[in-house]
């Protein structure tokens, strides 16, 4: 299912390990079928919360049972009352633990793209709409260490799940596990949130080849007023800090949102990269070389485009263009983006 290449925390080998793994996979499929895919924001409802005693809880149950035997054997009222008090306490704790997770909302899950070999992270935003504090909320992926945090009343909790450095490609994260053993740690309530998430791992920029020669054909370029030498790129939504002189006032007069006209500074170059034209035998090295060129071109303020098998990114510049190109590189060999035709 998962294309993740990470190895989980090295567990000690156990004879029942394959069986346990098969069981876990089976449970995961059943839960996925049962809960369906989640669209954020998700508020954790009773139907999807699971709860089981922890090891400590089982030990507590054993202790209570021994107390019950002793109390019954001697018909000792105080020992029996103590037993029942502890048993009722455990039931209260079960409810409280369940309540600690019930009503938590998952507001956002994101995985910012990273370069291969750099530490990655999944960002999770949890919301607490209740009037009480929720302590010790734990979030984890299937095989990452648990990250714990507390959400104050009517507040949000932002958590970062660190991932080990990844190889170039697309890491599909199928589900997120949210759990809590608070209070008393006798029970652990948990749920899975299935928000399919893709972590794009760009190829690490590397390689010393010179960029390809500047292409002569300047597609889509036409002179435009303003500074005659600048090149008109297109319209984009207004952002704070844009000069009013660049605003497309005519369009605004037609009741369109505020748009800004973008120009290419004069003197910059147009670079068209094509995976097929990068020399070299090793595929990943060629992708790394392309990443190098794209990063450099962006830093130099050039316009650039990219062609990889199956995808063509038209020339442009700016952080979004950089991401588009690097993402196309990350997806080579991993199929199209989810949701794309």
């Amino acid at each position, binding site marked *: 299912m998962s294309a993740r290449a990470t190895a989980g925390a090295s567990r000690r080998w156990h004879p029942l390990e394959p069986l346990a793994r098969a069981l876990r996979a089976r449970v995961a499929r059943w839960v996925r079928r049962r809960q369906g895919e989640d669209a954020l924001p998700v508020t954790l409802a009773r139907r999807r919360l699971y709860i089981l005693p922890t090891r400590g809880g089982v030990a507590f149950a054993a202790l209570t049972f021994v*107390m019950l035997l002793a109390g019954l054997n001697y018909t000792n*009222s105080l020992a029996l009352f103590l037993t029942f008090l502890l048993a009722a306490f455990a039931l209260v704790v079960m409810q409280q633990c369940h309540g600690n997770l019930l009503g938590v909302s998952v507001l956002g899950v994101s995985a910012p793209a990273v370069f291969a070999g750099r530490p990655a992270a999944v960002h999770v935003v949890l919301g607490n709409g209740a009037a009480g504090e929720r302590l010790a909320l734990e979030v984890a992926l299937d095989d990452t260490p648990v990250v714990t945090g507390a959400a104050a009343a009517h507040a949000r909790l932002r958590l970062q799940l660190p991932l080990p450095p990844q190889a170039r490609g697309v890491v599909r994260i199928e589900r997120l596990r949210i759990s809590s053993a608070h209070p*008393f740690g*006798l029970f652990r309530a948990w749920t899975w949130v299935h928000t399919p998430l893709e972590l794009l791992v760009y190829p690490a920029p590397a390689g010393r080849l010179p960029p390809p020669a500047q292409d002569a054909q300047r597609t889509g370029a036409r002179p435009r007023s303003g500074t005659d030498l600048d090149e008109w790129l297109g319209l984009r939504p207004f952002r704070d800090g844009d000069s009013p002189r660049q605003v497309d006032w005519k369009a605004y007069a037609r009741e369109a949102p505020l748009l800004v006209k973008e120009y290419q500074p004069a003197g910059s170059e147009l670079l068209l990269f094509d995976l097929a034209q990068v020399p070299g035998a090793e595929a990943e090295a060629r992708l790394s070389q392309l990443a190098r060129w794209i990063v450099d071109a962006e830093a130099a303020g050039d316009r650039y485009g990219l062609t990889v098998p199956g995808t063509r990114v038209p020339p442009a510049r700016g952080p979004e263009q950089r991401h588009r190109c690097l993402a196309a590189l990350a997806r080579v060999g991993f199929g199209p983006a989810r949701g794309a035709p």
Partner: protein
Amino acid sequence: MAAPRTELPLRPLAWACAAFAGGVLLHLDRVPAWASLASFALILWRLAAARRRVWLPGALARALLALGMAAVVLARFHTLNGLTAGTTLLLLMAALKLLETRNARDELVLVGAGFFLLLAACLDRQQLVRTPLYALQAWVCCAAIGSIATPALGSRAAVRLAGRALLIAAPLAVALFLFFPRLPGAFWAIPRGGAALTGLSDAMTPGSIMQLVADYSTAFRVRFAGPRPAGAALYWRGPVLHDFDGRTWRRPAEVFRTRQRPEYLGEAVHYRVALEATRQRFWFALDLPARSPAARVFLTYDYQLLAADPVMEAVSYEAVSYLHTRALEPLNPGGRREDTALPAGANPRTLELAQRLYQRAGGDAAYVSAVLGYLRSGGFVYSLEPQPLGRDAVDELLFRTREGFCGHYASAFVTLMRAAHVPARVVTGYLGGEWNPVGEFLEVRQADAHAWAEVWLEGRGWTRVDPTAVVAPERLRRGVLDLMPQAFSASERLLYGSPWLLALMQRWDAANAWWGDHIVKFDLASQLDLLARLGVPTPEARYLGWAFMGALLAWLALIGWQMGRGARAARPDELARAYLRLCRKLARVVPARAAHQGPLEYSQVLQSARPPLREGGELLARYAQLRYGPQREAHRHAGEVSAFVRAVARLRVPPRTA
């Protein structure tokens, strides 16, 4: 070689130590002092090690320590399988475990030890006065679990959390306690060792009862079914002593004799006795019990109640007695031989006195009167601080010291009887008791311990004679305290001398009696009784199961509902509801508002609609003003909110144009 260890957070460790230390404190007066001291020392050691780097023993040292401690316990108790020995061992092992506490699980083990010590304390003693301690210990243990599970939790928060959970748990615990079916008997027994507690024993030296006189603890409580007999008739019969060595009276080894059946005269007295644990086999009944009150309790040939097993737990029983009896058959020769025997050569002057008095009296009954007359007029004094007596104790009492209390005079009287071949024996037990008007029961204390004599008179049978009564007639009407105020300390005199304090004391005694009758002795019979009172026509154990399950489920449903309510987000107010309605209306035309979009951001989306929803945009801006604007309070008072609600209701959203 120091054990490698990672530093634990101090707070959970301290809580685990507190839970364990609380358990140790509960047993402070039961386990040897060195064991408690060793536990506290180990706790301090571990806490010091957590604060700064102090050497902790390695695995080998710990193993040696564990073996050493087990050996010491074994040497001290000769067993590991008794409540005290087991508790001591548990205590020491848990303290050792503390030294290798490295993670949360080790700390939980320690809290578990705290719980087990609490259980052992409950099994050991169930007095009302100790229950607050037990409750406190349970609370501390639960708070410790909370602190260990969530180390970020502050100590106060842990205490509050545990207290809250226990409070919510308490009603269910009470329901479970009432309805969980009890077993009629035990499935196994561990030896409950140790010496006898305070109380009468099967031997009496002249001074032995003295130890009881200053003991104000309860021996047993009595509730009478009918009218209460007069105070002078309240002789509570205990061990009957036959064997005499010149100084000490003893119960004979197990002998079997046929019981001399008496004729019971007068009305039977029905009553219920709640006997405290004594670790002795004696049960007590009013003189003279008519039958055995329970299985495995025998009415012996000399009419004492003797149980097959020592009384390890407080026990209560129904008894029937008659205050007056008469013999139906002559004393059998074995009994006569036993109760006229005297040690050869002991107390020669007493024997001589007996010969003289008997010759003058001429008959058994007259001889009894003569001896009593001798004691009355011979200058004898009732004293709780008599001079010590030597080997021929009776001679010294009668001819030298002439002072003593019940034990002395009973012993002397029986010796005088036997010296004249009149069968006689010493009976120990209690005399009188304090009537508690609050609880309407008679409280018999150890201080009421007494000894008297029984004489066989032809035609009447065994007849009770109390020689103390002729020496100090007040003893019958009043307690030992009134008689001998100097035997008590000043504070005790103050306590029992003040009517107000006495009333308080009686209330406390009544509370204790209620506790003993209704809580400590709550068993299957009490449960069925409860069912009957709840209106179940034919109470049976299986109805208890139903009641148990019902209480459990009802409580679970209630708590689940309650907790779910708290976890849910607060219900949106009027303004928020109108806003949500507005967004729903707008969503018919433009894309629905995303969760991250605020009202102003969403109003930008409205720009894309054709024709643009100007009115909708204004309402969104209005909402932002009412909700977040600087004058939001003023607006709210000015009825702007309801105006907004009405405006939202009036808003017409034009159908989407293609």
